[in-house]
């Protein structure tokens, strides 16, 4: 067996430095990928939350408008009639608001 006539110039220290450098680079790269993924996950979460908020706002607004429509006076009267309500319309002229003499008191509505 022929013996090699040159010696390995790469010392253990140098090798260790290169390996360390490689580990640092790999570490940084992994951290970058990890942070980036987190970032995208967070962004996804933000986007989903934003969509949800928009949908909820729209839904709240829809219900507010439906309530407003349900409170429409002619519609209310119509529903009462349809349901055979025995409630009688009280003419405004038959009502009287009796003001409280005490400023903290409540006004009283009296049916004449």
């Amino acid at each position, binding site marked *: 067996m022929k013996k090699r006539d040159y010696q390995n110039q790469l010392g253990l220290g140098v090798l260790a430095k290169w390996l360390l450098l490689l580990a640092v680079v790999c570490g940084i790269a992994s951290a970058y990928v990890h942070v980036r993924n987190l970032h995208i996950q967070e*962004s996804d979460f933000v986007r989903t939350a*934003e969509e949800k908020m928009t949908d909820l706002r729209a839904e709240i607004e*829809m219900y507010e*408008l439906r309530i407003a429509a349900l409170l429409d*006076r002619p519609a209310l009267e119509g529903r009462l009639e349809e349901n055979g309500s025995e409630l009688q319309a009280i003419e*405004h002229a038959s009502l009287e*608001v009796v003001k409280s*003499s*005490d400023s903290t*008191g409540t006004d009283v509505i009296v049916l004449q």
Partner: protein
Amino acid sequence: MEAEAIIQRRTFWACVIVVGLFSLLSARLIDLHVLQHDEHVETATKFHVRKQQLPSQRGAIVDRNGELLAHDQRVFRLVANKIHLRNHNIAARGVAEATGMTTAEVRRQFDRDEILDGYERWVALVLHQKGGIGESAAELKEKLSTSERVEIRLQRGIEEDNRQLLAGLMEKHGIRGVYFEPESRRFYPSPNRLTHVLGYTNLDEVKQPDGSVAEAHVGKEGVEATMNEAMAGKDGFRFYERDNRGREIAAFRGEQVAPVNGKRVRLTIDMGMQNLVEKALERGAARFKPEKISTVWMDPWTGEILSMANRPHFDLNTREGERRNVAIADQYEPGSTFKIVPIGGAIEERLINLNTVVFCHWGEFYESNGLLIKDHHPYGDLTTELVVAKSSNIGSYKIAKLLGPIRFHQYVGYFGFGEKTGIQLTGETTGTVHHPENWSGTSFSAVSKGYEVAVTPLQMTTALSAIANGGLLMQPRVIDSIETADGEEVLEKTDTRVVRRVLSSAAADQLRRALTAVVAETGTAKRAAIEGYQVAGKTGTSQKVDPENGGYIPGKYVCSFMGFFPAENPRVVGIVVVDDPEKPADFDTPLYGGTVAAPIFAEMAAEVAAYLEIPPDQETRDPKFETRGLNIDT
């Protein structure tokens, strides 16, 4: 040595090749990143970066108490994308879902056309039978198959809860290629109230600040039109990047301009009062079946319109019905209500006072030129107050003659006739007032009793307000203020505006007293009286003009009553104009302003008085009102 030389040569060439390859690679990179940079950025941007329109909301309309009258609502339209629907992979997955087979089995058993056709059938079936879209599944399938457009609109106006249901349904049944696109709808919670004042909008294409064109609601009539600029929002936009699945990458959001919502408009209208007034108007319309009927109610001190309504009218949400706001857009000959002009002018000019006696020729007065002026009833001497109370044509004409045609015509103008009031509504007409130079031999007497002159109900209300408030002609207004979109801050308040002084306070006071006599037991409008309040007003009955043949139509009348109360310190002025009423079977009196319009006015006035809590100004004979004004401890 020989071997060493070979190694060196090989090493050299290997290096040359490696360097050469890397140089080529570098050159390509330089070509891509530097020389073709802009081109590739543009291509990438096209694929990944999208500009999204951020729709603004049109401003709401609320009444004086903040009650919501009009609002933008986010709804959705369901759109099928033809390219996506005809994607073989999507279609195969859909058919697999429909048949319970695997996608591979579907591909094996059916050819491409069968799969595409089968998928369209499946989409139509699911959307119609489970989602209620379209008139029938067959009709929907036909639409999907035959439409040549890439984007096929399947349904509009889908509300948020239905969108969520449909989205879940589509997800469950593997429907792809059908999407929801947001759109806005103008929503009126009370679609049969205040219709002519609110007006309506159309969905038009509007140029945005960034130069793009977007669909937006544009006001066409009523407050929606006059306040369009304030209520119109400005759409925003944003650039965003999408990943390979088409989802937004929120981390890479680009330029963003937030939408600016339109401002909120607050009206002077009181919807509680409006409802009471409209109900009474509907009862009047049901009883007399007129061609048209209108009412306007106003605060005489500020010009604020509290209520305005007409029948027929239209449904704000469907827009079916009559859209013409008769109260401001239609003119009619006012008849005797116009007598406030000659009598008011003559009092102002100190030519007469309430005690001045006018001889009324027992119902028939012949002018020097042979013109006959008649009264409905024969009267001899009448004081000015009684001329007003009895609505004598002869008395009114003789008083107008004291003024003379030119001064009389001036007062017609002072009271605001012949010009628009300037209310913030669309379609207002000026009415018709002829100059004395253009009068015929009969015109002077005709105009003095409210003929040969045409006015709008709003003009008459404004003129009467000038008498009610002590002589000031106020500009009527329906807009109270413009506010921020959330209503937190008032941006612009509409001020009360005095147009001019028409009468002195003393003259207005005298006329006001004369008008209370009209509603007294001996006046023409005793049916306008309401319990507990002294009402002042004037009746009017005029024959209807035949617009085709000229002249008047026999048996057709415009009956009106305008009034205010409490007479001494008026809170509200109102008018009821009934155009061509029919005589009900149980109606035993002729159709006059005092018999048709006055009772409707009284019905409204009683409700309005209670609603606005106007303190009574008269002793009442009715014991049920005896507790009024009582203070109690709580």
